[in-house]
């Protein structure tokens, strides 16, 4: 089956089927706090994404939703709380809180702010988060695909080279195998003809579809989308959303920061509303859009719907 923009069904067939996350709860963020200097941008944020679920995070700009999604693959550091993906603590190791400097990579690392575990049933201060080795963080990120607002395709590589880069150099897949997978992905996002084209010769919508294919090529257990349609011309939004809808339908576990309420209504299993660094409310799209319980959600929705 092919749509007008050439997007085909069975997207995940290109990477050998739906990647199976190891745990039922794929993203488990607990009481995450984050500061930019003195600015408290995430305040005790707890969000869960279950296996094969699509969670859409909405909220006004400056609400911390983009910062939060970037914390999930440790592109941003957090000051307290825990984020588990697939059961693994992301970006940090827990160590005994007091008792000398923890040793990481041969040299002591001192966090600027004391990090105190706040999990219920645990003595506060019993453990402390220490940033993990860069190599370990890198291997955790292999399981987490990310799509950016501004695509961030590698401009010195063609479409297919962008897609096969990480499978070859990170996963160690053979070039032949990666090419087969890369072509299958390109074909299924409707861009088979653009294999040897450089990103600057492609439209925004085409670039974003290739960026999605690039992330999928790593066979991630989780896909993060950070406002994937916000930098697109209106007529190109549809083709990107189409790919994302197809992914959700096929059972990819996804966390999406978006202003596309239509997409959220149609695809999301749950919608999370954030404002000023706090999770204001969450529920099914019907609950949040038709009968919001919080005043701030009502105000926000009335402005954008």
């Amino acid at each position, binding site marked *: 089956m092919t749509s007008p923009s050439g997007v085909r069904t069975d997207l995940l067939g290109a990477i050998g089927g739906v990647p199976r996350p190891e745990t039922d709860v794929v993203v488990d963020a607990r009481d995450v706090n984050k500061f930019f200097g003195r600015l408290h941008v995430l305040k005790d944020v707890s969000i869960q994404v279950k296996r094969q679920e699509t969670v859409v995070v909405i909220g006004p700009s400056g609400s911390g939703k983009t910062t939060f999604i970037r914390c999930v*693959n440790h*592109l941003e550091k957090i000051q307290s709380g825990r984020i588990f993906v697939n059961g693994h603590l992301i970006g940090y190791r827990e160590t005994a809180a007091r008792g000398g400097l923890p040793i990481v990579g041969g*040299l002591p690392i001192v966090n600027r702010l004391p990090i105190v575990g706040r999990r219920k049933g645990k003595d506060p201060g019993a453990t402390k988060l220490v940033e993990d080795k*860069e*190599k370990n963080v*890198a*291997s955790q*990120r*292999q399981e*987490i*695909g*990310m799509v*950016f607002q*501004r695509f*961030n*395709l*590698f*401009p*010195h*590589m*063609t479409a297919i080279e962008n897609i096969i*880069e*990480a499978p070859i*150099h*990170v*996963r160690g897949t053979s070039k032949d195998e990666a090419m087969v997978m890369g072509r299958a992905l390109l074909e299924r996002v409707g861009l088979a003809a653009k294999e040897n084209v*450089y*990103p*600057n010769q492609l439209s925004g919508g085409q670039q974003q579809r290739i*960026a999605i294919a*690039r*992330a999928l090529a*790593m066979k991630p257990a989780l896909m993060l989308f950070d406002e994937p349609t916000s930098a697109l011309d209106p007529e190109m939004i549809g083709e990107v959303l189409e790919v994302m809808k197809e992914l959700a339908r096929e059972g990819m576990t996804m966390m999406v920061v978006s202003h596309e309420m239509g997409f959220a209504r149609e695809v999301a299993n749950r919608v999370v509303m954030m404002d000023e660094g706090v999770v204001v409310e969450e529920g099914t799209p019907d609950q949040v859009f038709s009968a919001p319980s919080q005043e701030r959600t009502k105000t926000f929705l009335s402005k954008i719907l």
Partner: protein
Amino acid sequence: MTASLFSRFGTRRALLAGCLLMPLVIAGCSGNYPVKPNEFWNSLFRPSPAIINGLGLTIGISVAAQFLGVVLGVLAAMGKMAKLRILRVLAGIYVWIFRGTPLLVQLTFFYYGFATAGIFKWPGLTIGPVNILPEIVAGIIIMGVNEGAYMSEIVRAGIMAVDPGQTEAAKSLGMTYGQTMRRIVLPQAARVIVPPLGNEFNNMLKTTSLLVVVSVFELYNTFSTAAGRTYATFELMAACAIWYLLLTTIWGFFQAWIERRLARGTTGSTDQTDYSLRARLIGLRNNSGNQGH
């Protein structure tokens, strides 16, 4: 007559020829000086083995020192941007010292100074059938280390010019710091680095003439010695200048070619940008309306 010359060969060509002949014209006008035109013409069109050898040394030392400079420059730039404070401090001290003192002083200090104080005597080097004299080894290394200090700033600017989104995309795919640098950041930084790198090499070709102080017989030293022997300083130095001009001009072609290759995948790479030699040398762009008559 001048008018006819201009119209016959085109303005620019006539001017160029005029410039090249200028030394002899001036010499001819300065009554008392016995011009030795043969010294000038022979060293240009029938160069002695010594001159050929000097040319080879100048090119060889320049390439080797520049290569060393680029390697050290990349390392120092990464050091300056490292998380570890000690690396930043070390890179900072290196750049501070080698950019802050004259190359001439560095050459004499590390070659003669070290030898006199008995700290270190530069060894020669044998690679297969080739013997490299100690002063040449010293020259390459000292000039390379000096060049590295300048390159580090150029490389750092290049790395910082790459969109931070590129690093984030690479990280999000699971690449390590080293992979991100090698595969994603440095190839893109190269586009920003190559034009000033070309200038650095142009400089390097000429700066090797300072190696005369450690008695390397490169191009300048060869001519300088010949001038001392024949007293034809005027003619020989004019010829020497033309040799250097030739080297830097040929390098200009290479630089343009490399820059065109690197432009792949960037905006405007499909444009026919004029990188002709003339455009690079005298800053004039080719446009048909301007081509003589």
